[in-house]
């Protein structure tokens, strides 16, 4: 049995705490939840995607037309925002920005600056913002407004074109898993022998 020093568990605990802390600093910015689709099957209009969420004092519905936007095809984001307590509609200018949400752009920091795509005022109870993307990718649409001195930042995911089935991290994770599996299969007898040898010397 290995001799254990007092510093080893302390250092390990510190490492674990650091990792935990680091993990907690990584926050999600997506609005999660299942999108809903509301067209009946006889409609000629392309289906839209809607996400509903509550933030601060407002109940917000986000809709994307079409549900599966493609590069070089115009699309539109609709936002409906009503107060949770009395259902009154938000009547305030909303600024829409877009930023890259791909791994290289978001996590590594290689993204271009967020781009303002427009500022919209309420029109018949809806904030409508058109868009046209030239290339496929994962984007985050941010709707920003201030009310009663409070800033509201709503981030919504927008996938333009087909999502790439496997990203760089996905490929790395897949490779690690494949490597583990292969070593377990190909080296199984050697591993079993080593375990038993080490069991005898422990």
């Amino acid at each position: 049995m290995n001799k254990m020093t007092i510093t080893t568990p302390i250092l390990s605990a510190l490492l674990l705490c650091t990792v935990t802390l680091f993990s907690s600093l990584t926050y999600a910015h997506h609005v999660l939840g299942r999108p809903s689709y509301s067209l009946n099957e006889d409609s000629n209009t392309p289906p839209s995607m809607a996400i509903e969420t509550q933030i601060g004092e407002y109940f917000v519905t986000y809709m994307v037309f079409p549900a599966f936007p493609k590069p070089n095809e115009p699309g539109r984001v609709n936002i409906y925002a009503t107060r949770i307590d009395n259902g009154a509609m938000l009547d305030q200018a909303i600024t829409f920005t877009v930023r890259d949400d791909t791994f290289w752009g978001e996590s590594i920091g290689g993204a271009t600056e967020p781009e303002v795509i427009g500022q919209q005022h309420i029109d018949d109870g809806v904030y409508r913002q058109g868009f046209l993307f030239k290339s496929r990718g994962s984007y985050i649409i941010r709707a920003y407004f201030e009310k009663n001195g409070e800033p509201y930042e709503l981030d919504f995911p927008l996938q333009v074109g087909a999502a790439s089935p496997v990203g760089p991290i996905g490929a790395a994770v897949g490779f690690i898993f494949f490597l583990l599996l292969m070593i377990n299969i190909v080296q199984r007898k050697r591993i079993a022998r080593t375990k038993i040898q080490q069991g005898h010397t422990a």
Partner: protein
Amino acid sequence: MMEKEFAPAGLSKQKPITASKPFALYRHLNKLRWLSLAVVFLMLILIPLLSIYQHYVAAQGYNHLSPSQTLLYDTMEFISAPFVDAPEHDLDAIKGTTWSGQLFGVKLSDPLAIVGQSAASLKLYWPLILTAVIPLLATLIFGRFFCGWICPATFIYELNSNLSVYLSRFGIKNNRRFHKNIKYLVLALGIGISAYTGTLAFASIYPPAVLGRELYFSIALSGFGGGTLFFILTLGFDTFVSRRGICRYFCPGGALYSLLGRYRVVRVKRLVEPCNDCNKCNAVCEFDLDPMRDNFGAECNNCTACISVCPKSAMSLTLSISDQPNQGPGHQSRQYRQQNSDHNETIQVKNIS
């Protein structure tokens, strides 16, 4: 079948070893366990794929899909069609992760989720607590079986454990030991932090919860969270610092299951008569227990690796709420025979293969 002769010392002539042989299929339980772990892991991959398929169906978007999305749609339709009529709604019958989910209408939650949630909210919410009844009962009966048979993180950690063994051949010291009670401290701290902050602290560090969430996130939402980084670091810890160290020393779920399963009904026991003290059971035990000296304790997850590796079929399952006391050396071991060499009497022992 063969016959051997050796000094008796404790062996009863009236009770041949054949009477205490374990049930033959016990040896294959470890294979069944790997199958169970693989199925759970694959389910965690399949559920988000089904969820994406549900979205496509709900959006009636088949004609708008890219080729890869169409392939996904067709594959999921092929898999689910025999079981559901209206996938948009019926596929909700299976959802969630091992942390909390629904299996054919039965809602199930990890007991750690209940403990953490109750601590965070400082109240008991019975509809939620009831979802943990089945896992709780199973733990009371089978002990820490979740860790060995269901936990998706175990699937990865155990594969990784073999990688650690392989790497140790090249001089990497990765079998450091820590105090087993550290995980109880992690459990207590997690409850305290949850109660103080009102957040579910365990969800950030409990490997199966992290893995289930990250798998869903990566497949359904095409992204990775900080949990992926955390999980890879735990793999690094297991690989280079301490084999299965996360499960053994730090997992709060493991701590809770060890507490709940302390008086489990189904447990592994050693049959002293056929045992030859070869130590293989100890060598393969992922949790560094000491089956060869009847020391299983609360940590044993009934993985049955010791049963399947034993060349003398000296490991079996039994119904008992406590481990048997140390029975001494196996009756076929050299040590045992030397201790009893002054006995002249010899007996026939059959069926020791």
